[in-house]
C-alpha cells in the first residue's frame, strides 16, 4: 500500500485540532482612538465579551496620546451596559518618577488621585503631554467582572511621558465596590479627546 504524504495544502480544510493546546490569552477587541471622546468596551456590543466567559480580563494601552496637553487618562465601570459609568470604587495610587534632566526622582503615594468609594472616573495618575512623541502605555487587569458575590478587583501599571518631561511609572489598584456584575468599561481623558492610541482587550482562559 502506498503511503500518503500530507503537506500544508492537503490540510487547508482543517479548522480545528482540539488536542493542540490553544493559547490562554485570547484577543477580544481592539479599539483605536481617532480624536475620540471615549473608548468603551460594552459586553455584547461590537464583538466585545466581558462576562463570565473569562475569569480575568486584560486591557493593554498602547501609545495613548491626548489631544489636550497635561491631562489624565481615566477609566470607569458600568453595571448597566454602559448607560452609566458610575460604579463606586476604592483605590490606591502611587508612582515612581524621574525627570529627563535627572534633576529629581520620587516614589510617593498620590493622595489626590485615589478614590474612597467615589463614583467618578479613576485616573492613571499624572498629566500626559500632547507633544507628538508623548503618550502613555501600560496594562490593567480586571478580575471576575461577572461575579455577583465579590467586589471587582483591578490592578494596573502605566508608564507615561509627563507634560513636564518626566517618566512616570503609575500603579493604580482597587475594587469596584459592588456585587453587581460589571458589563462595561469606559476610558477617556480628563479633558479633551483621546487623539490616538489603541486599547486592546484580552480574555484569560482558566480551562
Amino acid at each position, binding site marked *: 500500500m502506498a503511503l500518503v504524504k500530507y503537506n500544508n495544502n492537503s490540510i487547508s*480544510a482543517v479548522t480545528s485540532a482540539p488536542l493542540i493546546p490553544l493559547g*490562554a490569552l485570547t484577543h477580544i477587541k481592539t479599539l483605536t482612538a481617532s480624536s475620540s471622546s471615549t473608548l468603551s468596551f460594552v459586553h455584547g456590543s461590537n464583538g466585545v465579551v466581558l462576562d463570565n466567559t473569562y475569569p480575568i480580563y486584560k486591557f493593554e494601552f498602547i501609545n495613548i496620546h491626548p489631544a489636550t496637553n497635561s491631562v489624565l487618562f481615566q477609566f470607569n465601570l458600568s453595571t448597566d451596559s454602559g448607560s452609566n459609568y458610575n460604579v463606586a470604587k476604592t483605590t*490606591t495610587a502611587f508612582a515612581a518618577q524621574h525627570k529627563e534632566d535627572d534633576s529629581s526622582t520620587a516614589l510617593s503615594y498620590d493622595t489626590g488621585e485615589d478614590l474612597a468609594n467615589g463614583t467618578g472616573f479613576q485616573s492613571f495618575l499624572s498629566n500626559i503631554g500632547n507633544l507628538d512623541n508623548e503618550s502613555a502605555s501600560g496594562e490593567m487587569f480586571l478580575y*471576575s467582572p461577572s461575579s455577583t*458575590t465579590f*467586589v471587582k478587583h483591578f490592578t494596573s501599571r502605566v508608564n507615561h511621558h509627563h507634560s513636564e518631561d518626566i517618566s512616570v511609572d503609575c500603579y493604580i489598584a*482597587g475594587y469596584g465596590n459592588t456585587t453587581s456584575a460589571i458589563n462595561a468599561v469606559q476610558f477617556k481623558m480628563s479633558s479633551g479627546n483621546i487623539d490616538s492610541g489603541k486599547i486592546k482587550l484580552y480574555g*484569560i482562559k482558566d480551562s
Partner: protein
Amino acid sequence: MSIVKLNNQGVKNATAFGSISSLGSMVFIKKLTASSSATLSFVDGANGVVLDDTYKEYLFTFNNIHPATSGAYLYFNGTDDDSSHSFDVVQTTTHFRAYNFEDDSARILQYLSSFDTAQGTDSRISSGLHNDNDSSLSGYLTLFNPSSTTFVKHFISNTNYEQGAVSINSKFAGYFNTTADITGVQFKMSSGNMDAGDICLYGIA
C-alpha cells in the same frame, strides 16, 4: 493521482503540526478551586501539573481568594523535593503595599518590615484578609525558571484585596534561595482554610 483532502475528522487526534505544538505563548496548565481547603498545591507531574523546564516562566493567577478566618494572610512556599514535598524552601522577600480606606480616613504607601522574609519559609503574599461575604483577593504571581540548578528562583507578585472597608494593593517579590530545582509550590492561609477562590497556573513560552 487522486488528491487527498484532510478535514477535522482526519486530524482529530493530532497533537502537533510539525513544529507547532501549541498556539499562543500563554498556555493554561491547571486550575485549582478552593473549597474549605487547607492548602492548594501545584506539584510537577501530579494531576496534570507541569512545573519544570518546559517553560522558563510560570504565571499563577488568584481569583477571589476568600478566607474562612478573618485576618488570615495568604502564604506561599515551594518544594525542591521530588517525593516528600515538604514546602520548606528558604526565601528572602520584600513586601510593600498601598492602602486606602473607603471612608477616606487614611491612606499610605509603606514597606512592611514585619511582612518580609529573611531566609525564612512561608512568605506572606498579602496582609490579613477579611472573610466578609464580598471580600476577596485577586492578582497574580510570576515564578521564573523554577527548574534552574544554577540560580536562585525569583518570583514577583501583585495582588489587590479588600480588608474590611480598605483597599490594599500588595507588591511581594523575592527568591527561593536554592540552586535545587523547584518542583512544586503551595498556597495556604496563615490560619484556617481557604474557603473559596481559584488559582490557575499558566506556562509562558
